[in-house]
């Protein structure tokens, strides 16, 4: 019996090793094959634009299927809609709004007169009219509307009344003719335009559909009608989308015949890219080395608009505003010391795969309001300074256990928390932060919390979250009021500072800054200086966006506002 089982084991080992050998052997073969295939094509560069071809683009998770700018709620859907629909205005590489389909004039930032180009065609053949835009604005302002965009309409005069059913029209919208519309906001703001919903909806396609049924309708789900360079030919819900060239695209006829968007699990994207069955996808920085190693693919990084920070709980949310009533971290010296203790350079290099950099302000570097580093305290890694600051602030090790006690001689523990997802690097990067603090003598306890409830628990001021890791991505509008004003729910440190509030409100106050961008920027720079002096949160790092683009796809450019329009892309055959 024993002999037999040994035989079994041997047989098993044999089978297993044969299996593994087959795998690795095959892998090498594929490699060489690919190289051969690529050689001739990479030789010829600088050739001219070719028409035709199909682009295969991958999403890393299934879209929700809300394929309309007025209804979509996540970036995956947005990636799809971007191919077939169009924003009326665009943002340049400084994130300033520029005329696109619509151009505008305003004297006072309260009343805007828009003019749209003539002859812009919808995919169903209709000509774009400002009435389509008016229609979209009214849908979003409707009481039955369940999407997340009302925020971008509410500032229009009369929109709230329309939403509440007190008016049958939005008083701030005045249509002059098919190409001219006038929009009046409830008050003059610097950033009225940036926050406006500038996406029209085709009136004919939505005809006869009640607002509450729109989100579930075919026109949104499977047969959307857009203005963009490609029109939707077919949608297999949750799986793939096929688009065809739209010859009458107002920005010029696209070069590629087709675009196929597929959902591909991120673990497969490298293999698909290598096989040439996938042309373009955004990917997680953790696989950047694998993508870079592919001969036929370029790993593009472009400036992002997000930053990460470590926040301190300084107070609580009383239901309508922040109150600074938590004592533990009120001492600025303690916060400064914890900042000096972190070796951000090393940390970012270890956990952000070369696509992140340390950041010194609560604004991403690429935003036009970002203060120059020379205007700000740098807080370079300096553990000695950290220890000295802690000594000065009275945090000393009294009982000789190697960790400091608070000024009253009580045990001091930093309760730090970080969100957890399937990403395995999160725990180690959080752990690394705790080690920096322990090195300067601050005992730290780490809690990893499921990402879904992380912000919920932060909102409810959970005990384990006195110090917390967080991240924000910012949009085209630079205004940080929603994140850092004393009345902002998302000001998780619950930082209350009258000067900060004043800077933030002045910066969008027409009476103070008018239309002077420099003056506005100066206020934001002053605000950033104040922030870095007060340190309610320690800005840690900012991340670049990463995108894999096959070398056969040409003409794709990236800047901080994203990709250029896909009608300019072409495929080398």
């Amino acid at each position, binding site marked *: 019996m024993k002999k037999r089982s040994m035989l079994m084991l041997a047989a*098993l080992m044999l089978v297993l090793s044969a299996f593994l050998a087959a795998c690795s052997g095959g892998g090498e073969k594929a490699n060489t094959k690919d190289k051969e295939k690529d050689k001739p094509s990479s030789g010829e560069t600088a050739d001219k634009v070719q028409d035709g071809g199909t682009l295969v683009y991958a999403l890393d998770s299934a879209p929700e299927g809300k394929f309309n700018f007025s209804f979509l709620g996540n970036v995956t859907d947005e990636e799809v809609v971007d191919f077939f629909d169009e924003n009326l205005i665009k943002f340049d590489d400084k994130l300033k709004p520029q005329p696109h389909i619509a151009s505008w004039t305003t004297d006072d930032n309260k009343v805007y007169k828009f003019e749209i180009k003539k002859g812009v065609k919808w995919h169903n053949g209709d000509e774009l009219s400002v009435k389509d835009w008016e229609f979209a604005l009214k849908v979003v302002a409707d009481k039955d509307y369940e999407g997340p965009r009302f925020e971008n309409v509410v500032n229009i005069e009369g929109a709230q009344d329309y939403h509440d059913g007190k008016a049958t029209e939005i008083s701030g919208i005045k249509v002059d003719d098919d190409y001219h519309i006038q929009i009046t906001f409830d008050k003059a703001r610097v950033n009225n335009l940036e926050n406006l919903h500038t996406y029209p909806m085709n009136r004919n396609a939505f005809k006869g559909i009640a607002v509450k049924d729109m989100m579930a309708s075919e026109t949104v789900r499977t047969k959307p009608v857009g203005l963009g360079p490609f029109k939707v030919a077919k949608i297999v819900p949750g799986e793939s989308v096929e688009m065809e060239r739209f010859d009458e695209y107002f920005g010029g006829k696209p070069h590629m015949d087709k675009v196929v968007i597929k959902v591909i699990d991120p673990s497969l994207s490298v*293999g698909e890219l290598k096989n040439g069955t996938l042309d373009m996808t955004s990917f997680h920085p953790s696989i950047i080395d694998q993508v870079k190693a592919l001969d036929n693919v370029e790993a593009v990084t472009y400036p992002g608009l997000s930053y990460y920070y470590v926040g301190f709980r300084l107070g609580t949310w009383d239901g309508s505003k922040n109150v600074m009533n938590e004592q533990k971290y009120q001492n600025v010296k303690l916060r400064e010391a914890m900042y000096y203790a972190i070796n951000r350079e090393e940390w970012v290099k270890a956990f952000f795969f070369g696509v992140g950099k340390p950041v010194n302000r609560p604004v991403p570097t690429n935003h036009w309001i970002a203060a120059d580093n020379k205007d700000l305290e740098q807080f370079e890694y300096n553990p000695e300074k950290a220890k000295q600051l802690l000594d000065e602030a009275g945090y000393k090790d009294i009982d000789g256990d190697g960790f400091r006690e608070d000024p009253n001689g009580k045990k001091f523990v930093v309760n730090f928390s970080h969100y957890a997802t399937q990403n395995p690097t999160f725990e180690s990067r959080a752990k690394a932060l705790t080690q920096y603090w322990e090195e300067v003598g601050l005992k730290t306890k780490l809690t990893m919390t499921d990402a879904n409830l992380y912000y919920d628990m932060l909102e409810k001021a959970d005990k384990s979250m006195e110090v917390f890791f967080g991240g924000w991505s910012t949009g085209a509008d630079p205004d940080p009021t929603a994140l850092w004003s004393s009345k902002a729910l998302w000001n998780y440190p619950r930082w209350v500072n009258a000067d900060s509030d004043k800077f933030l409100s002045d910066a969008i106050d027409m009476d103070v800054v008018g239309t002077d961008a420099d003056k506005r920027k100066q206020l934001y720079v002053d605000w950033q200086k104040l922030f870095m002096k007060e340190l309610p949160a320690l800005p840690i790092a900012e991340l670049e966006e990463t995108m894999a683009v096959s070398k056969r796809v040409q003409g794709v450019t990236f800047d901080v506002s994203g990709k250029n329009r896909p009608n300019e892309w072409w495929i080398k055959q």
Partner: protein
Amino acid sequence: MLKYAFRRILGMIPMLFLISIVVFTLAKLMPGDSFSGEIDPTKTNPQYIAEMREKLGYNDPLPQQYFRWIGKFVEGDFGKSTRYKIKVSEVISEKLPNTLLLGFSSIIITYILAFFMGLYSGRKPYTVADNLIGGLNYLGLSIPSFIAGVFAIFLFSFTLGWFPSNGSIDIGMTEGTFEYWLSRLHHVFLPAVVLGLLSTASYTQFLRNDIIENSRKDFVRTARAKGTTEKKIYNVHILRNSIIPLITFLGFDLVAIISGAIITETIFTYPGLGQLFLQSVGTRDYPVLMTLTMLFSFLTLIGNLLADILYGVVDPRIRLD
């Protein structure tokens, strides 16, 4: 038999009711809700989230939420997915055909493979071929499906290029044509094999052992003494007896078909119920999550019943009363 089935079905009603309470409570006990993962300062504002929470009734007391949900559920209104914003029944029926195809293909592959391998091994135990089959089976049993899936993709999709690594259909196909179905089968084959790996292995070994055991029984010796051919002994006398336990697995497989393969579907980016279930947990899409759980529970009960009834059908020695 009918009486028995009827009694069991009646017994399911209070069971399902209890399950619904458990499902609901557990779902609501999950921390967070469908909005807590979606905080994005540029797109949403706190008032919107508060308003939506109120609208969806998340702020009502739990018993009230439960009765509202179960009341509608009984009427066949499963609610609206908080994530997709369409009816749950629509979300599910979108994915159901994919899952059914995957499940049935997997079962067919499993049964065919298990049947032939088991039959062969059982007839010729302890030979080289039997040991090889055994070795393969233990390999199949011991490799978790996510590893098997990744290897299968690497080998058959990336290296050999035989099968697609993701999706359920080539988007270019016209629905209903022969190519369309061919493309679907092409897409479903790899995940179906991976999904069936574990059960293939266990069914094969099950069948093999049963055949060996039966071949030592008295009735086989009698048959041999009568001069019945070996072929007939194995194919008729033994097989009929050995197939019984396999058939009863069918009842349990029914559940496996519908509940899909959470891991396999995710690895192959195959849009079915398993993937949907996982996503609905991640995004706290309560209506979808609870409907799916109820559906799975219901099918488990039905599957058990079916298995019991099948026992009685194939083996008259077992009486159901």
